[in-house]
């Protein structure tokens, strides 16, 4: 199921990540900022794309601002943003 709404999740606090997502038309467009870009930029991008794929999101504009979050935290924030964007959040 595709995204319906623009949505966000997470915070800008240390060890967290802030994720914004909106419906797109041309695949996944990912904009990533991270305090550990050099050390983990590629790993983060892979994790984000992996979560989107698991949730069957094929077209979306995604912005991730990472404040040194562990991968399980980033994955959680992306998932929550997607669920909110699909209107599935409880």
């Amino acid at each position, binding site marked *: 199921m595709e995204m319906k709404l623009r949505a966000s999740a997470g915070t800008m606090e*240390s060890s967290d990540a802030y994720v914004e997502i909106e419906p797109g038309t041309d695949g996944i467009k990912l904009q990533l900022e991270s305090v*550990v870009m050099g*050390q*983990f930029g590629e*790993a983060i991008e892979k994790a984000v794309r992996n979560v989107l794929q698991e949730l069957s999101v094929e077209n979306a504009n995604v912005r991730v601002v990472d404040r*040194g979050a562990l991968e399980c935290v980033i994955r959680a924030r992306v998932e929550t943003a997607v669920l909110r964007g699909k209107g599935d959040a409880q």
Partner: protein
Amino acid sequence: MSKLVNSIREAVALSGLKDGMTVSFHHHLRNGDFVLNMVMEEIANAGIKDLTVNASSLFDVHRPLLTHIQNKVVTGLSADYISAGIGRAISQGVMEKPVEFRTHGGRPRDIALGRTPIDVAFIAAPAADKMGNCTGKYGKSACGSLGYAFADAMYAKKVVVITDQLMDYPLQNWSISESYVDYVVAVDAIGDPKGIVSGTTQITRDPVGLVMASHAAKVIENSGLLKDGFSFQTGAGGASLAAAKYLKDIMLEKKIQGSFGLGGITGYLVDMLQAGCFRNLLDVQCFDLKAVESIRSDPRHQEITAMHYAAPGSRSAVVDNLDVVILGATEIDTDFNVNVHTDSNGYIMGGSGGHSDTAAGAKLSMIIAPMFRARLPIVTDRVTCISTPGESIDVLVTQGGIAVNPRQAELKQRLVDAGLPVVDIHELKEKAERITGKPAKLPKGDRVVANVIGREGDLQDVIYNVPVKD
């Protein structure tokens, strides 16, 4: 007679400062200091170029210095500590000549030996009289100890005291005497009290910090060093202060009377003095209002010079009689080398200060650091910069376990026997990497932006520029 002159401009002119010379500053006013900026502006206005600035430390408040660097007013820099605001620009290559980092003990030693001669020292003084007797204990900008300024005063060719509290002659209870001073300038304000000393520092509420502090106190308790006559130094970081608090509880419970607390002094060490944990505090730098009040009023709390504190190669220094020091780290490698100069991205954001001096002197030097910060493991294969060599580090305390330097086998056994969570430093690295993932290696620059001079005066390591991405 009076040494008072009308302005900083006049003092600069009278001092005979010329192109290519060296000026010096101390950092007792920390991030509240106005003096370095005021002086450098007058120097720039006078058209003097190609100066070397030798400062005991530089803080973000000194960022106008970057303009003077760009304009070639300043072409050389020497300091024991440089905070991130200036450090970042240096890492990006703002200076042609590499910065020289020294230790708090190495700096006065090199000044005294004439290795780093100072032409004019500008000494910010919270209270001074017309002849230059001065102190940090009084005045609206009181900072307590002036420990780092003594070598500058004693060995510079010309000495200018700058104060915002002119006292009747003779000033009582001076720190630096008039016999070293050439000129005195009175200004409206030498600094912003809010940036000079902090108020009461609260014990950290960060749970990880508390766990580390509790481990640290137990390491000291079981080290065999905690007995009457015990001496101690700790930094002003949250976990270090919490460790001091736990240590105080242990000392009081076991009725142990230590000999002295050393270093940068905080209210926590003052509490320990007042509770009877120590007979004396030896203070090279006050960190908070409570420490300033104490050094002013309690004769057991004594000012010491940086030379007396930590200088290697002098007849003796207090660090040589230190039992335990608690220190921080941005990185530590599996050989226990510690980096406190750069962050994990390679940008300069600190410096040794007294780190390697106290680590070399103390019987037990302990690093407190979390297993990882912002997803970056603290333990690496090789630190970005060796600030303090691993041979002088004994223990690393993290929330995930305590690693003991293998050459301290007896200490390790003591800690194991006490039931503390002792782990191999390689295991600690792997444990952290299991949580964070393995960080990719960063590309290193190809130009040296700073030389780290070890406390013995040798070149210990170099810091490379951080390549700026397009």
